[in-house]
């Protein structure tokens, strides 16, 4: 019983973190049809910005509880500054081109941003530990968990619900869905498609950045943090179906639980577990779990 609950909690906390990051990736693909390799770089920017914001708040003698606000502001700042610059200044010139070209463009962007973060923040690590201790510890059976881990679960639920509600229950969301369905028809109905692109890209970057910002207290923020997250995020969105929010949620849960099961029961298969699940899903559902099979346009 203890083991089952431990596996479940570990899977859930890992899945929450994954979902926040993967949601942005799948949203950007759904709207802009871009497989954004640079998503990990925006995650890293969120982590670095969090380090700076939490540091500034501490310098200004804000109470430690305000460090959570600092994390949120860091993600907002990254989305507000970097997303329009990237989308308007670079990506829009490649819309309508081959998807492979866009993958290469975002890969180039990933390499550039790796060096930009080093230029701005240097190579030394940053520690943002203040928020991590704010919520105390929670004892469940033989385990002691950090309360912050459960805050991440809550954050993932709030973000998932907010994005779903925004897309399905608001006018702006319906406009975005119209663009996803057919940008040509949407444009002919008077929708400013390029504005929708920028909005969707900014939200996607915000989600990456908030993932990085809320991960920063658990790690040392340093060059290279962008690499690991992008690979596993791709596994999540491929399992769930590219462009599907429900898919990202279920994909993250599947990956989180598969990894947790492997670590506890067969540690040697930890890395393998994620990709065997992905392969199994793709064998049965090549489009991913929540993606409709699409007719090929000729």
């Amino acid at each position, binding site marked *: 019983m*203890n*083991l089952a609950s*431990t596996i479940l*909690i*570990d*899977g859930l*906390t*890992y899945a929450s*973190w994954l979902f926040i990051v993967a949601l942005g990736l799948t949203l950007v693909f759904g709207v802009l049809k871009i497989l954004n390799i640079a998503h990990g770089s925006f995650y890293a920017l969120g982590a670095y910005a969090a380090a700076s914001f939490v540091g500034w708040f501490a310098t200004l003698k804000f109470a430690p509880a305000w460090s959570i606000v600092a994390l949120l502001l860091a993600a907002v700042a990254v989305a507000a500054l970097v997303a329009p610059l990237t989308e308007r200044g670079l990506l829009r010139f490649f819309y309508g081109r081959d998807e492979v070209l866009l993958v290469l463009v975002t890969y180039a962007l990933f390499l550039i941003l*790796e*060096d930009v973060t*080093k230029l701005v923040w240097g*190579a*030394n*690590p940053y*520690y943002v*530990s203040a928020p*991590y*201790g704010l919520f105390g*510890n929670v004892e469940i059976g*033989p*385990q*002691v*968990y*950090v309360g912050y*881990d459960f805050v991440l679960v809550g954050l993932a639920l709030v973000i998932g619900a907010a994005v779903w509600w925004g897309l399905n229950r608001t006018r702006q969301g319906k406009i975005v869905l119209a663009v996803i369905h057919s940008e040509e028809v949407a444009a002919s109905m008077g929708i400013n498609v390029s504005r929708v692109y920028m909005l969707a890209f900014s939200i996607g970057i915000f989600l990456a950045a908030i993932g990085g910002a809320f*991960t920063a*207290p*658990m*790690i*040392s923020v*340093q*060059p*290279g*943090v962008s*690499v*690991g*997250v992008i690979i596993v995020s791709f596994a999540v969105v491929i399992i769930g179906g590219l462009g599907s929010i429900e898919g990202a949620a279920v994909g993250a849960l599947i990956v989180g639980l598969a*990894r*947790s099961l492997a*670590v*506890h029961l067969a*540690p*040697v298969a*930890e*890395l393998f577990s994620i990709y065997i699940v992905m392969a199994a899903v793709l064998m049965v559902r090549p489009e991913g779990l929540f993606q409709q099979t699409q007719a090929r346009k000729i």
Partner: protein
Amino acid sequence: MHAFPTKRFHGSPTTRRGIVAALACIALTPAALAQETFKVGIVSFLSGQAAESFGIPAVNGAKVLIEAFNAGSAPAPYNKVGFGGLKIEPVYVDENGGATKQVQELRNLYDREKVDAVVGYVGSGDCLAVAPVAEEMKRFLILYDCGTPRIFEDAKYSYVFRTAAHATMDNVALVQYLRARNIKADTFNMINQDYAWGQDSRKDFLLAMAKLYPSAKPQEDLLPKFGAGQYGTEISALMAKPADVTHSSLWGGDLQAFILQSGPRGLFKRTQVVLSAADHVLPGLGDKMPDGAILGARGAYGLMAPKSALNDWWWGIYQKAYNVYPVQAPYRMAQSLLGLKLAVEKAMAGNGGKKPTGEQLADALTNLEWDSPAGRIRMANGDGHQAVQDTAIGKTRYDAAKKMVVLDDIQRFAADCVNPPPTTKSEDWLKAGMPGAKCN
């Protein structure tokens, strides 16, 4: 057939001979001779996950040391300008990008940059990939950092050297330290990265435990991927089956993340954590580093370095330049450059003061011994190509007054106590119960 048409020169043959003679004279002036340099390719992580902990500190160490060598300001016997009067010209290359890229970069260094020697490589996988290439090209290569014992145990090289001890020393010393203090170790857990370094460290620790703690039972054996970042599940697994001792060879960002996530969950209070290569995270973690962790630095480096004039000088120039004390990576870079300097000067002494060839350098470094800030380095293993050195293990304590982590209860281990004898493979030596270890 003339390869160079004489039409390029306008003037009489006498004039041409005069120009050639003048150029020859200019080329032979002392000023031109003084400009001859010794070009060293220095390869380390300048980007990616290993940059902060290893690559950049090591390159920083190379920079201050080369500057001191070129100024002739290093203490004797390292006080000749440059390498035997040849100014050192470093070429820095990023190790990030994987073994295939490193093979190409190494070829570029030798063929395009025309370096006289290469000193480099943190990654065990990179070392395993580049060593055969240098050998094939018959070019001089020093591996300064990587830890896998397999380099000289699975192959023989003429042009390749490693100027630091391999990972067997680190794990044997850890277990010797536990044994010397009779620390309870009826059970032990392990968490190591799933690549050459982590796998080799895990194996060495297991074998050393089997001999020094024969009744100890291994429990959790976790192998997260390199760069995992999130260790919540692994920490749960370690806490679900608490062991007397928990061993890890994690390093860099992975180790920092593991400590930041496991410290608040109380792992360090439930088990005696032993870390084989952890000194480099201490300056950054500060009070976030739990007290009582037993750790090594892959040598007697940093806070565990022996007192000596050379160490004081080295510590001083590094701290002055970077406002932080040197940890293991710059120490290992320093001992490789000190060894290279002596090898170049020894080879020059034998060839009339000319810049040595790769063969002459290799002959000079084989079986060489020299003093480093971390103690005596002896190229005693791997047919004179693999270094052995003393090491040390200590226990962490945060000193609030000094605002830094200090190491208590430091024990030093002689090279011959924790390294296999010259002709024995590490694994065979460990399985045989470490025969010939001289620990007193």
